[in-house]
């Protein structure tokens, strides 16, 4: 058997057929091919973070916190970067409350072995992109996000406030 296969390598290109001492064989080569594009996906479990109505205790504390307010999930088949940026420099509302008064952090991640960097500490939003996490190829990597909105007796008059912000997943 082994000797026949050696012959097949030598002569197969010419005849495709080999006759050994004890057996005859014929071989055909085949090739499989496939293509993988860069594939990424980003989902959020909820698009709106609602802090509800603030209380005097919140003013006294200086902020209101919403733990596990959002789950952001990413899929990427190459190294990736997850960033976040405010859609505008200020909130819409009674006054020009700065976007940086909305802070967020990553509370936990479902697949830590797929992550190289996590923003574990609160940071204020800006209109420029800031890293939330960086990681390796993987799928269904879920980030649980905590949020804080800063409030002060001096600036935050009564009213409704809103701020849009956008997550971006990049796989360069």
């Amino acid at each position, binding site marked *: 058997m082994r000797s026949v296969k050696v012959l097949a390598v030598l002569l197969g290109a010419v005849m495709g*057929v080999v006759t050994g001492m004890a057996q005859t064989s014929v071989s055909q080569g085949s090739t*499989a091919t496939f293509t993988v594009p860069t594939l990424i996906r980003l989902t959020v479990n909820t698009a709106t973070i609602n802090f509800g109505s603030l209380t005097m205790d919140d003013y006294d504390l200086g902020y209101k916190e919403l733990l596990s307010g959002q789950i952001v999930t990413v899929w990427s088949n190459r190294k990736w970067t997850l960033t976040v940026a405010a859609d505008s420099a200020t909130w819409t509302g009674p006054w020009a409350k700065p976007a940086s008064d909305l802070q967020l952090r990553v509370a936990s991640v479902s697949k830590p072995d797929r992550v190289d960097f996590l923003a574990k500490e609160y940071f204020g939003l800006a209109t420029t992109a800031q890293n939330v996490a960086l990681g390796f190829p993987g799928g269904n990597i879920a980030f649980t996000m905590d949020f804080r909105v800063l409030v002060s007796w001096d600036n935050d008059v009564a009213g409704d406030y809103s701020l849009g912000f956008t997550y971006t997943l990049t796989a360069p």
Partner: protein
Amino acid sequence: MWAFFLSVLLAFGITAAGQDTGWLNPSADSGSFRNPTYAYYDDTLWASASPGNVHVYWGYSIAIPPGASVTGIEVRLDAWRWPSGVPFDAFLDVQLSWDGGASWTPRYTAGPLAGYEQSWILGGPNDGWGRSWSASDFQPDRFRVRLTAREGRETRLDWVAVRVYFSGGLSLTLNPATVNLGTLTLDDYERGYRDWDSIQEIKLSAYSSWTLYVSATSSAWSYTGDLPDPKKPCGHLLWKVLPSPTGPVTRYQANFTPLSTSDAEVAAGSAGDARLFLAFRLLVDYDTTLPGTYTLSFRYTLVVP
């Protein structure tokens, strides 16, 4: 006229049972046709001949499997007369030689040729042109096709091809030989694999009991892309034989089996013609399936003890 009728039949997909070599091109010639090499291929060029011109084509790469019996020979002439408006009949006589041109079969005739290119198929799956043929008759320097132009003004010839039919022997045909698995999606990653049913057909013919093996020619897929080679293992391509293969198949691998560089038995059977359909499964993960293009070569070997 008979030849033309046969060509019409073939054009509608009626083919003979058994196996054939497919249409083969010549690679050598001698004689008095003008631009004779232009008749090597089915293209936009043509050779031309005046009445009485004789030309011989040979160098066909005809491979008859060991143990096979030749059942028939076809010669295809893509030809026409010129000028098309001239109302003279023109013909091409065809003879075959099995000994380098020393001996010739009786002639078959294509014609009267039309004023436009037409495929004439002379002979047939069970037509030996008046003799019995052996595999050695088809050695490239022995098997020859002699054409004689008759009547008309000028005969033009785009292609002179040969197809040989045979039965029995030991042969193995893959359809397709190159399997394009296409483009992966994120759903494939989430599932962990992607399946393709009936992705490859294997036709084989054996004169005795047989065993079919498959093995990868390398332990990893060849990777082309902008990232470091993830060295995707060949075993990430799994294969199995789909149920109900046709022909004398006595056993086959019905469960997905990873491809490896060692021979794995695909199927086994007794003498005769068999047809198998294979399904492939590709394992997909984020570590070894990075963006890029992947190629893996593997080889089927049909063995008769």
